[in-house]
């Protein structure tokens, strides 16, 4: 796959925290328009990989591209321009707790569009309705359950209709039914908007629901990459064992 057809490209990325090499020469492409799942055991560098994609972390060596933009080399306004094309759903949802749920969703629109207040509120309500939270516009984030917070975080991540949506552990802390609902929302978003979905998870049920392609990280290295069917028959016993696990948390 060439760089031009990739929505995201990690090019020989290495990241070290202290004395620990968290990412070790990681290289892969995320094709545009599909669902791409990064999986692996806890502490293998999955979330660190996702944070590199949106420029929250910079590699110690290697490069990260979003389309043709080398995000790992950008800062200031050019970095912001690339980020406007992306959405990020944090593991904890990371809602701004000093403003209402609706204003959380409206926030990116207030910052980056010239829309009038009434129109922004209307669009924010539409985004909340899409995740089943329209009645909760005026609630404060602290009044929401874990699953509702995640859905509100998803609505905020979709506020600017991003071309790439990065999702960190969508199932974390959620019961299996709520987790399935969140996954269904993500699949709908991918199918309807044509956006590229990059998901980090260690939950194989979620990975199979969301991923057209899967990448497995182990001790900071990419050890397997392919469709779920290909990884089901991967030569590595470690990969096959992970693929057959039914971890729901």
């Amino acid at each position, binding site marked *: 796959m060439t760089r031009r057809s990739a929505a995201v490209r990690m090019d020989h990325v290495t990241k070290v925290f*202290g*004395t620990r090499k968290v990412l070790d020469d990681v290289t892969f492409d995320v094709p545009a328009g599909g669902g791409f799942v990064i999986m692996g055991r806890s502490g293998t560098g999955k979330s660190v990989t996702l*944070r590199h994609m*949106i*420029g*929250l972390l910079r590699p110690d060596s290697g490069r990260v591209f979003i389309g043709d933009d080398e995000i790992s080399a950008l800062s*200031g306004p050019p*970095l*912001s*321009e690339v*980020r*406007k094309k*992306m*959405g*990020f759903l*944090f*593991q*904890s949802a*990371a*809602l*701004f*707790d000093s403003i209402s749920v609706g204003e959380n969703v409206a*926030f*990116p629109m207030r*910052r*980056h569009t010239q829309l009038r207040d009434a129109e922004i509120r209307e669009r924010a309500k539409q985004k909340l309705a899409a995740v089943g939270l329209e009645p909760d516009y005026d609630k404060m984030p602290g009044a929401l359950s874990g699953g509702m917070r995640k859905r509100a975080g998803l609505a*905020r991540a979709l506020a600017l209709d991003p071309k790439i949506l990065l999702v960190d552990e969508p199932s974390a802390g959620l019961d299996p039914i709520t987790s399935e609902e969140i996954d269904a929302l993500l699949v709908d978003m991918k199918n309807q908007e044509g956006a590229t979905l990059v998901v980090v998870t260690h939950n194989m049920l979620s990975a199979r629901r969301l991923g057209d392609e899967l990448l497995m990280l182990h001790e900071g290295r990419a050890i397997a990459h392919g469709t779920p069917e290909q990884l089901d028959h991967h030569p590595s016993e470690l990969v096959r064992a992970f693929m057959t696990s039914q971890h729901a948390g």
Partner: protein
Amino acid sequence: MDVRTPATSFLAGVGDAALFAFKAMRLAWTPPFEVSETIRQMYELGLRSAPLIAVSGVAVGVVLSMHTRASLERFGAESMIPAGLAIALVRETGPLTAGLLLSGRIGAGIGAELGAMRVTEQIDALEASAVDAFRYLVVTRVIACVIAVPILTTVMNFAGMLGGFLAETTATGMPFHLYLKRAFTLIDITDYVPATLKTMVFGFIIATTASYLGFNTESGTEGVGRASTRAVVLSSILIIVTNVLLVRLIFFIFPKAAGG
């Protein structure tokens, strides 16, 4: 090989904090200006601190007045009490007390708020939303504090004089107009302006110290508490030490303020 020692770590921290402060100072003068957020911070940090400052100012004025009376009575100079109190308040007691009170109220608030935002990934969420979190969270607070602290110091001065009047009128029945007349006999603009403007530096110290500690919080909720406590302790120490240098500078620039 990790060559860090406590001494080098401390120096690295000081250097890091200094760069943080310089960055805040530089970005305060360059667009885009976060006007609405700055105004919101002036309300949160400034206006909402006014009751604390006003009540404390009255109490300080009462106490200062009682002490001044006890001293001046020995020399039969009770009529100088309002003027002595006004000079003490405007030149030093008002600015320093306001600075220390606000380092507690504002410093703890900023340290805890930004610390909590850091550990709950809200600062990362701002960045991911294509918002410059430093400009949005830090620069706005620095500007708000630099503007609000001198205003609150002025509130403290007037509240202190009101407290002094209450003590005086209780003790001697002195009318308000006479108290005011005597209070302003020795004081002039060179007493008020430099001493009040120096609190802009206090505001800068409080906001940058607390923001730095909050912005760089680690270790979850324990780290938030630590950031909040350190913000108060460090900014209080820095205010007290910096005050010595600023008073010396004021005496150099305005010899009259030194009584010369």
